């Protein structure tokens, strides 16, 4: 489904701020896989997701989604294949527009935008049904401006928007990190339900070791711009946080597991 081949990305190349963010990254994901991604601050996790989404061009390598080479495709064109939820709750929705207007925008992802009315009656019913899945009561507030929602509600809405048009790939970048624990659990729960419902191929970055083990069927760890640990299936299910920390210290070559770096 997704293939990253030898991806490299250096920011501010040739300046004092030069930073190698991705360094010969290779990763292949099969259809229906749900990969959790962990790694210390600056390991390149967000850069990997942004490279896949096309936020910036990569320096080297090739990105293939479902057999299509998207390496040189503009971000807005790639959006056809990709649903995204960002770490910042402000980033995924249009605050000055209504809930139903945001959903209508998402419903046209990857389709031509014509001069037909943005929202029809039938659309509205469909959105209402979809909002019920989130179990946040948003289905009764469809004409509320999104700017009035809480961070958690906005993240849940962004999640729904990312999956309204079934994406080939769902990218979640610490999408619960800005939320309080209770809300985070709710949004994660909704994530699980939505991913299960349509068997979405998913990549989820998290700093929470427990979540990384609980969710998904494969776990990768990044370090200095590439994948250093890759476990799946039974082996992943049986992982403990302690084992993960050990794996990390081995992979990064440091004696002690710097769990501050990993867990932050």
């Amino acid at each position, binding site marked *: 489904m997704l293939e990253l081949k030898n991806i490299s990305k250096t920011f501010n190349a040739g300046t004092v701020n030069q930073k190698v963010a991705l360094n010969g990254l290779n990763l292949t994901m099969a259809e229906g896989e749900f990969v959790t991604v962990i790694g210390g601050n600056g390991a390149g996790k967000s850069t990997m997701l942004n490279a896949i*989404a096309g936020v910036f061009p990569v320096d080297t390598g090739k990105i293939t989604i479902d057999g299509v080479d998207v390496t040189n495709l*503009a*971000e*807005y*064109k790639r*959006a*056809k294949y*990709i649903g*995204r939820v*960002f770490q910042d709750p*402000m*980033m*995924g*929705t*249009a*605050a*000055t*527009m209504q809930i139903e*207007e*945001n959903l*209508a*925008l*998402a419903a*046209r*992802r*990857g*389709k031509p*935008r*014509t*001069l*037909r*009315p*943005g929202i029809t009656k039938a659309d509205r019913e469909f959105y209402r049904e979809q909002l019920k899945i989130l179990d946040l009561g948003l289905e009764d507030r469809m004409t509320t401006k999104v700017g*009035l*929602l*809480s*961070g958690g509600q906005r993240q849940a809405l962004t999640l729904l*928007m*990312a999956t309204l048009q079934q994406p080939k790939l769902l990218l979640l970048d610490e999408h619960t990190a800005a939320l309080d624990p209770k809300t985070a659990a709710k949004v994660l729960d909704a994530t699980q339900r939505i991913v299960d419902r349509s068997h979405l191929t998913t990549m989820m970055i998290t700093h929470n070791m427990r979540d990384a083990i609980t969710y998904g069927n494969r776990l990768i760890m990044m370090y200095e711009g590439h994948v250093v640990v890759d476990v799946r299936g039974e082996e992943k299910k049986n992982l403990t946080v302690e084992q993960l920390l050990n794996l990390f210290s081995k992979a990064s070559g440091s004696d002690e597991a710097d769990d501050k770096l990993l867990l932050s």
Partner: protein
Amino acid sequence: MNFFLSLFNAMPGAVTQGMLWGIMAIGVYITYRILDVADLTVDGSLATGGAVCVMLMRAGWNPWISLLCAFLAGVLAGLCTGLLHTRCGIPAILAGILTQLALYSVNLRIMGGKANQPIGVDKYDLLVSQRYVRELTLNNPIPLVILVLAVLTGLLYWFFGTEYGSSLRATGANQNMARAQGINTKSGITFGLMLANGMVALAGGLLAQYQGAVDVNMGRGAIVIGLAAVIIGEVLLGKVFRNFALKLTAVVIGAVIYYMVIQLVLQLGLNTNDLKLLTALVVALFLAIPYWKTVVLPRKKEV
């Protein structure tokens, strides 16, 4: 008594001028409020519209067709700014200034090298003219201006409710989100600039007819007047006018109030030369108020 009488006599003119500038201000609203781009092209494209319309009418063209051509000329001006901004990576404000500067030369060329070209109401079949603004006849420009405003507002209301129109609103609200939802933000911004400058040039075409001449400097400071209209409309009516069509109407009302106030302060003895200073001060003040509110008052809590 004399003061009030002459003020009263001046009101139809102020209202009409306000409504004509209101068309222009709707263009500013599209860029400044919907697309979140400060577009300075308008100072040039207003005169472009006036120049195209007047020169075509002087050449014997039908006034409506001339007006349509003025609109299209504005669309082209917007396209220039859009391309400079989205395809050449020039910041929007600077792109607008560049186009505006270039338009000064272009406008002079359109006007045959003259800085002013008259279009007399006696010789030409004008759509709107200052001369009849206080007459209760079919020549009075006010009904026609209201009709034009109603049609434009209706069209824009429809357009920004369509799938494509919504994608432009999303682009202005949050470009990250827009791109993530597959919206081509570059072409959207360019289209918005074209539409807005088309409106501005249309207003320029009507204004030139209304005044009976086009002047190469007629657009100087237009952006500030447009902003004044947008802000006055929002401050006075923002709480009650929620619907998009009503918001556009508020912009026009803002422009009308602006010209009524200008008329008032002129009658009170303000020097015409100081007008732009006053306008700039008022707009600066209204732009600063929202900022001061966030600095002084604590942030409003999320619900």
